[in-house]
């Protein structure tokens, strides 16, 4: 598999990112680059700093050191909405879907399309359903816009959550453990959703504990340990065994 490094400018570039919580050094000197259409697996044991890194990128809190550049420009996020404004979306582990609403309603939640009727702005159901159908089509997911989310399978729910990121034309999508706790068939669906995002030129950061999934879809794997980046290798240059020993600390760095 060829990583599109030659594609030019990285979508996200981190230089020397550090983050302290009181006496705890959660992140230290993390450098990382992600290119458009690249899928990067972010691995590490619990407490290795994965979530902190994701939260820094997503704007939940600012880093103490280092610089974040997005599409070549230095950015400073203070709230998640700032990160979303430039094109960074997070698909949360619990997907953040409202079960009692339809797929289309969830895709457009908080960003509803409206039509003006005099002083009133009413929802434009037709356009939202059509656009949602289009997004599910792009993701090749068997999801119907008018179905309630509570009646859907795990894979379909993922499709709804991912369609939401497509709606805003996100350039970087970070997915937090999307394949934990779903069935084998659904894992396959989620992995193909990630490949669809890649085809559309979206950079994806996949946070996962599941080695087979990372090796199935990722172009590159980044291993974190004790708040530091210990490895950053193309999938072809490493093996599950090496990654495991990097995660556990049996091997210090690679």
């Amino acid at each position, binding site marked *: 598999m060829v990583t599109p490094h030659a594609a030019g400018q990285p979508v996200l570039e981190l230089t020397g990112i550090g983050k302290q919580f009181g006496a705890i050094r959660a992140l230290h000197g993390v450098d990382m680059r992600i290119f458009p259409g690249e899928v990067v697996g972010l691995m590490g044991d619990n407490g290795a700093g994965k979530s902190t890194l994701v939260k820094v990128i997503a704007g939940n809190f600012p880093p103490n050191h280092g610089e974040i550049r997005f599409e070549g420009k230095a950015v400073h996020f203070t709230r998640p909405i700032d990160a*979303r404004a430039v094109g960074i979306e997070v698909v949360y582990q619990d997907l*953040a879907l409202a079960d009692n609403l339809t797929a289309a*309603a969830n895709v457009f939640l908080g960003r509803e399309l409206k039509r003006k009727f005099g002083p009133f702005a009413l929802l434009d159901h037709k356009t939202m359903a059509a656009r949602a159908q*289009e997004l599910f*089509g792009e993701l090749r997911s068997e999801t119907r816009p008018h179905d309630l989310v509570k009646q859907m399978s795990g894979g379909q729910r993922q499709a709804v959550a991912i369609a939401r990121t497509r709606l805003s034309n996100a350039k970087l999508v970070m997915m937090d453990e999307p394949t934990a706790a779903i069935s084998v068939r659904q894992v396959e669906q989620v992995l193909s959703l990630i490949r669809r995002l890649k085809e*559309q030129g979206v950079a994806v950061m996949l946070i996962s504990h599941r080695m087979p999934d990372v090796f199935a879809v990722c172009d590159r794997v980044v291993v974190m340990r004790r708040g530091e980046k210990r490895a950053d290798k193309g999938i072809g240059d490493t093996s599950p065994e090496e990654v495991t020993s990097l995660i556990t600390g049996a091997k210090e760095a690679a």
Partner: protein
Amino acid sequence: MATPIESPITFTNVGKARWWQSGIFASQTGYVLLALVALFVVMHFASPYFFTEGNMQNVAKNFSFIAIATLGVTFVIITGGIDLSVGSMMCFSAMITSMLMTDVSTPGVPGASWFVHLAADGKTVVANVPGLILAVSVLAGLGVALIVGLVNGFCIAVLGLSPFVTTLGMLSIVRGLGYVVSNGRGSFPSGPDADYFYALTSGDLFGMPAPFIYLLVLAVAMAVVLHHTAFGRHVFALGGNEKAAAVTGISVVRVKIEVYVICALAAGLQGIIISGWLGSAPANMATSYELNIIAAAVIGGANLAGGGGGPLGAIVGCVLLEVIRNGLVLAQVSSYWQQTLVGVIIILAVLVDRIRSRMA
């Protein structure tokens, strides 16, 4: 690079839901409506008086007396909250409206000269601007409701207190304030504008009781707001998954405060209408109405866990309660049975819903 879109997609293993398996027909509101129709038929055979015009008007009027407040509390229930202060709120708004209307119509009371003057005979009180007193006093009644709603919403959304405890406290606070301002005495809407007030609250319009007309207008407005505006969508989202609503950028605090304000305003309006029909606003008015109102909402399909409910369900619930009450009276059964029966129906309605979702 874009991928070709194979649209529309077809599925071989997914059929289309039959009309009776989706929408209202598969909801609790649907079969409670069915039960209601059955009850109407039974009542028709049980009593020749049931379907007379007089009795139907009576039923329409009586259920309208709790239905507007039920619409309001349904908003709160959909977000997963509860408002126990509606009964007290009804009384307090009615009392403020009635007292203000009486006070500003009494020459000699400070400020009254803005609204009324004495006619040439020195006895008759005449309004300076007809209708102004009515408008001001109704707005004052709704104004206190607005304040109570804001306080409820602030405590629940901003301070993070539990809706049950907050509104239980508010039930007592507002009822207490009602006794304070009235000294425990009832108050009677009077003055030059009282005739308008009675016409608007207990009069008839097109052969239908006025409160029933207000109810229909408000119910249609509520249906549009819930299903065709972003606010309504956010109300449902809050009840379905509050965290999801927050991460998608919905202002959870604002929506929550808004629903408690809507609920308090609906209760206030309801109280003002009832005081017109009673001809007074006694200090113990609408005591424990909150239980009937919440019961009606729940029977009609509002889900106390949040995420479900609507105006049709609220009205169906109120009609069912009223038809049972009316029916028991016509059948000459002791009216004490009413409360027992209402309790049984609440449990039955929720039970049938549980059985249905198990089978589906």
